Every structure is written in C-alpha cells, then in structure tokens.
C-alpha cells in the first residue's frame, strides 16, 4: 500500500463511520466504484473497528504494571550479571554513566577464555543521530591497531537493538597512580608519557580524536605498558560537544571530566586534535606534580570552567612547593596525600628539575588558543625528547617572554618602572603567611627581568588572594588583590605608553582584580565601598569586549551588583 492509497482508504473509512451502519454498504459501493480491492480494504477496517471497541483505548501506561517487575532484569532495565549477549557472558558492571555502562564479560567460547570490556549505550540515548554516529565511529575504531591503545574487538546489537562495543579488557593501574606507586623518576614519567603521545599521534593520523584523555582512561599494565582506553568512545557517547558528562569507564572516577577539558570544550567550540594536545598537557602536569593546573579553582564547576577559559595555569614548578593553599579535589585526595609524603624530601630537587624547560613544555600544551599549542602529539613528544637529551626545546622559543622581549626593547623606560614595582612587591611579600608562596615569590624575584614573570606574579598574587578570601582572611586577601591590580595597572600604563591599545588580557586583569576587591569588601560588609569597585570592574570588562566570554563575565558582574544592592 502506498501512502496515497492509504490516504484515500482512510478518507472513505472515516466517512463510512459517520454514517449509520445500514447505509455503509451503499456508501462504499459509490465511493469504491470499480475498485474492489479498495472496497475490501475498507470493509476489513470497518470489521476491525467493530470488533475492537476497546482496542488501545486504555493508555499503555495503565497497562504497564508489568514494568514494576522489570527489576528482575536488573536495575533500571539493565542486564543482570550472567546475561548472555551474543557470544559474550556479562560478569559484572565495571562502570556506569549517564549515557551507558561498561561490563566485564567473558567470551562464551571454550577456545578463547578471554576477558573483554563491553560498552553499551543506554536505552533512551539511542536517537537516530547517535546510532548513526556510533556505527560510523565503530568503523573508524576498528582500524586502530597500536600497542598503546586498547583494541576494539567486536561489536553487536542487544535484543533491544542497541549497539554495543567489545573492547580489549586492560588490567592495569591509572597512570598517575602507577607513577606514584612505583615512585618513577621524572625521566621515567616522561618516557611513559611519550608512549601515550605515540598512541595519540597514531590515532590522529587515523582521523580519530580521543576527546577524553585523562588518567582514568590510561591504564599501565604490570609490564609497564600504558594503554589508552575508550578511544573515540567519548564522541560516540556524547550527544553534544558542550556536555561534558561522559559515561564513566571506571567507577572511582569523578563523573565529570572537566578537569581535563580544554578551553574550546568548555566554550562548546569545535573539538580537534588540539583538544587532545591540551588534555595531554593536563595529564603531564598531573604526572609531574600530582596536581591539576587550576588546583585552586576546582571547588565548583563554574569556577573551574572560568579558570579553564580565562586563567593562566601556574607553572608546574610553582605548584610542587605549595600545599596548604591548594584545594585538593576530593576524589583525588588520597593520591595527593600519598604524593606529598613520598615527595616531601625531593620537593626542592623536583622544583629545580621542572623549572624552565619542563614548565615551558607543559604550559605550551596548555595554551588557551589551540593554534598556540604543539601542532601534534608527535611534536609534543619530540620536545620532551629534546629535553631528555639536553637540547633546547621549542616551547621556550615561543614563550610570551620571548615575544615580549621585543616589546621590552622598544619600551625600556616603562619596563624599568615595572621592574621597580615588581621588586617593591616582592619586598612586601613577607607579610604573607604562606611559606610556599613566599618561595614562589622569591623564585619570581630571580627571574624578574622578564615581563613574563610580572604576569605570573600578578596571577600568583591573585590566586593567593582567592585562597585567602575563601579562608576568611580578608585583610590579606585585600592586600593580595591590590597587588595584582597594581601590576595590571602597570601593564596598562606600559601598553598605553607604547601607543597601542591596551590588550583585552590587561583590561580583563584590571577588571577581575577590581571585582575581587569588591568581593572582599562585600564579604566584610562594606557594601558601599564594594559597589564602586564592581562598577569600575564592569567598565573594564566592557573595554575588554571582543569575546563572548567577557560579556558573560559582565553578566555575572551584573548579578553580583544586583545581589550586593539587595544585601
């Protein structure tokens, strides 16, 4: 039957229903004149209609009491352990997320008694679009064959028609824990990391972007071989690039992988190989320091998102000395404490090792702008090799310090002034309670000849202020933000003096520190003093304009002003 035929049959049928039963035969004879097949169709429908007065009339939901017993098939309609799926027998669920679950399974075959991991999309997630992408990606993944990538073995469909993937099951330890457990040297860690880079490079050459590189997705086997899991699965299971809530592959992982997310992911922009480079940068940061680049910010997702978009991460060498002032993410607390214990003595030596080339290498991978990062995982890996061989690294040739050098030579006078300010700042840094931060400041003093260090100093002061503010030390916080503001003001003056427009970064720094000062004032109850700070900050943000993120900062500020007024 075609839809045109059905439309006609429907019309006649519906017309017949509106007539008294005794008139129907005549009605059909007229309308179906010469088309007996159609007439029989309509008559059949009428018979169906007459014999099924209550058919479908009670909504399914009232028929669905059986649902109450679906528990027999596992929680939420999922499979019970022991369930046989194609040639595989499910053993136990090893991961579960918003969009799917992962099972440990055995192949139902006496010849290969092989353990596999089966990844399934959850019912309800299977829109046509997702299923189409799932099939497409399964093809891509089937072609990935690399010693450091967990292999895709098979795929199939559940009785409900949901696709699933069968992956090599890797027995191993998450890479960061592996490094700590084995107390690997920096060199050992770097070599391990390079193996991860080679896997990522291989995938990129095969047009697969991982999108979810994180310690929990890289397991190191007993033989010391790192294996990258879930290649491309992130994309399969994600309905939207701006949604970072991924299916978890390991139960102990935090549900959100924002920790490894790049600025473009947070902004919901296109995801490219540069995104993986960024996540590799976060991974290396973590492997070297046992910390996250925005350690201070991880208290709330919103703050972390903001930091990923806007804040420069502290160089790895700067964070290994600190502990009290860095908020430790809850889920990783155990690791961090263990790390602190094992590291305590070696800390200073570690800082010396990280400072310089390794700092630059990590920070280059963590650039906000994708094009400023390493162009490939291979280049990233090569730079580490250069470091290991004692050769100059490319990360260093490309630093803001290098680029600012030219600016410095053109503006010798204002730079001299800036150095004086920086020195003065360092002179007063002794008031800080924080031993670690002091040595951080001391480190900056030794490097203060570069503009770059001033920028770092500004961020350090600002971060310190944030820590002080959250611990309720308002006067210290005020002093810290004020220092950061002074440095931002110096940037502003230097840039204005050069005849160029002050950069958005500078304007944002001015705005941010003004707003922070406003927050401190508000926290102490000095609402009248806080409001003008917010207003000034708002003006500065507006001057920074250009990008949408800044506008959202303005909106946020508007809310703060509103809240302050109502307080």
């Amino acid at each position, binding site marked *: *039957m*075609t*839809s045109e035929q*059905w*439309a006609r*049959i*429907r019309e006649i*049928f*519906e017309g017949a*229903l509106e007539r008294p039963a005794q008139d129907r035969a005549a009605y059909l004879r007229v309308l179906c004149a010469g088309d007996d097949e159609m007439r029989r169709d309509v008559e*059949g*429908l*009428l*018979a*169906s*209609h007459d*014999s*099924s007065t*209550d*058919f*479908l*009339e*009670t*909504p*399914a*939901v*009232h*028929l*669905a*009491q*059986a*649902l*109450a*017993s*679906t*528990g027999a*098939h596992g929680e*939420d*309609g999922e499979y019970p352990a022991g369930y046989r799926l194609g040639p595989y027998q499910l053993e136990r669920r090893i991961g579960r997320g*918003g*969009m799917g679950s992962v099972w440990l399974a055995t192949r139902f075959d006496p010849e290969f008694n092989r353990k596999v991991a089966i990844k399934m999309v*959850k*019912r*309800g*997630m299977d*829109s046509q*679009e*997702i299923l189409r992408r799932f099939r497409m990606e399964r093809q891509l993944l089937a072609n990935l064959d690399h010693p450091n990538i967990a292999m895709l073995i098979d795929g199939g469909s559940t*009785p*409900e028609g949901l696709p699933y993937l069968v992956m090599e099951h890797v027995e191993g330890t998450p890479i960061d824990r592996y490094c700590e457990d084995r107390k690997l040297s920096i060199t050992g860690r770097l070599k391990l990391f390079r193996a991860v880079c080679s896997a990522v490079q291989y995938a990129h050459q095969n047009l697969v972007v991982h999108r979810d590189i994180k310690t929990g997705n890289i397991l190191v086997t007993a033989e010391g071989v790192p294996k990258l899991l879930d290649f491309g699965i992130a994309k399969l299971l994600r*309905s*939207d690039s*701006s*949604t970072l809530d991924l299916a978890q592959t390991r139960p102990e992982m935090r549900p959100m992988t924002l920790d490894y997310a790049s600025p473009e992911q947070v902004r919901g922009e296109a995801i490219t190989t540069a995104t993986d480079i960024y996540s590799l940068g976060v991974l290396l940061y973590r492997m070297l320091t046992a910390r996250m680049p925005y350690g201070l910010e991880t208290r709330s997702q919103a703050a972390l998102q903001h930091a990923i978009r806007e804040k420069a991460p502290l160089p790895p060498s700067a964070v290994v000395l600190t502990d009290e002032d860095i908020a430790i993410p809850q889920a990783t607390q155990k690791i961090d404490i263990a790390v602190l214990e094992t590291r305590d003595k070696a800390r200073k030596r570690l800082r010396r090792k990280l400072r310089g080339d390794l700092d630059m290498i990590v920070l280059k991978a963590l650039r906000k702008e994708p094009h400023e990062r390493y162009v490939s995982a291979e280049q990233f890996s090569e730079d580490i090799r250069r470091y290991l061989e004692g050769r100059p690294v490319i990360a260093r040739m490309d630093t803001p310090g290098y680029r600012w050098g030219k600016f410095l030579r053109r503006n010798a006078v204002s730079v001299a002034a800036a150095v004086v300010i920086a020195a003065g700042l360092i002179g007063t840094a002794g008031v800080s309670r924080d031993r670690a931060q002091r040595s951080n400041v001391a480190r900056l003093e030794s490097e203060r000849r570069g503009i770059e260090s001033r920028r770092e100093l500004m961020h350090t002061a600002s971060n310190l202020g944030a820590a002080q503010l959250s611990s309720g030390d308002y006067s210290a916080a005020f002093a810290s933000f004020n220092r950061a503001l002074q440095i931002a003001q110096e940037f502003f003056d230097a840039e204005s003096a050069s005849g160029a427009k002050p950069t958005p970064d500078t304007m944002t720094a001015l705005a941010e520190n003004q707003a922070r000062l406003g927050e401190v004032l508000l926290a102490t109850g000095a609402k009248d003093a806080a409001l003008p700070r917010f207003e000034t900050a708002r003006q500065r943000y507006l001057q920074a304009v250009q990008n949408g993120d800044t506008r959202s900062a303005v909106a946020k500020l508007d809310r703060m002003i509103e809240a302050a007024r109502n307080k």
Partner: protein
Amino acid sequence: MDESGEVTRLLGEIGRGEKDAMNQLLPLVYDELHRLARSYFRRERGEHTLQPTALVHEAYIRLVDQRAPMESRGHFMAVAATQMRRILLDYARKHRAARRGGDGQKVLLEDTMAICEQQPVDMIALDGALEKLATLDGKQAHLVELRFFGGLSVEETAEVMGVSPATVKRSWSSARAFLHREIAGARVPEGE
C-alpha cells in the same frame, strides 16, 4: 541547575530548533518515566484503583517548570510519549528474550488484566504495525503514540498536534482499525 530547570531549558532550545537539545532531553525523560512508572505501580499496587492521571502528566509536572510556555508542554508530551513507547517495547523484548525457547513469541502486558477489562496487547506486534503505519502516515503514528503511549486525551492530543479534536477523533479511529487489522492479520498464520 536542577532537573526541572534543565528540562525546561532544553525544551526551550528544542522550540528554537536546536538539534542537540533533543539528544540531551531523551535520556532525562526516559529515566524519569521509567523511575516514575516503577514507583507508581509499587505505590498503587496494594490500593484500590489507578489514578486517572497518566504517567506522562506526572513526569511533566515533576520535570518542567510550570511557567514554561505552552508549546514546551507540547514538545514534552511528544517526547515523553515516544519514550514511553520505548520503555514498554524494551520490557516486552526483554521479556521475550528471557523466555526464548518457550512459547514466548507474544509478549502481552497481561499482568494488568485484573485492573483493565481489556484484550491484552502484543507490544512487539503493535510496534511493527505502528512502524508500518508511520510509513503510510507519520502523523497518525505520532497520534497513536500520544494517545496510547502518552495517555493524552483527545483534547490534549489535538492541542499538541495543533489540529481540532474532531480531526483527532477521526484520525484515531482509522489508525486504530488499521493497527488492529495488522496485528490480527499477523497473528492468524502464526496461530495455525
């Protein structure tokens, strides 16, 4: 953001034609319906009657900010009806898989018969018939989803579909007859 804010926001995005919003909404609605369905029946079982309020309405009240525009309600009802169909179909398929080898070809929601004096419905056969109807007239198949799976009244269905109640009634009668004949037709050769 709490769940109701999230669902309300997604409905708004769907209204503005943002494709990804639907993908995000589906699992939320599915989970809520499933959860609600189970608690609903557990709660009702020992008592006398089922509430006339359909599950989908309850999900709507729970998930959507009641100040959301009317069109959001329509989008929600449509999504929820589709997801309800999936939930029931999943149950039926799983049930059949579990009884594979037995006479488990037909899966009827028969447990409920004590409550509803009605012929049991073979969910899997119904699904096949609905698929067939969808190829002939997508709107009619959608209407069946809203009425049967979503539990919407004629008036509510008319509102969601943007047609008159009379049109819904007519369309419903032919869709129902079609499905009934398809299912009966499929059943005969099997039963012989």
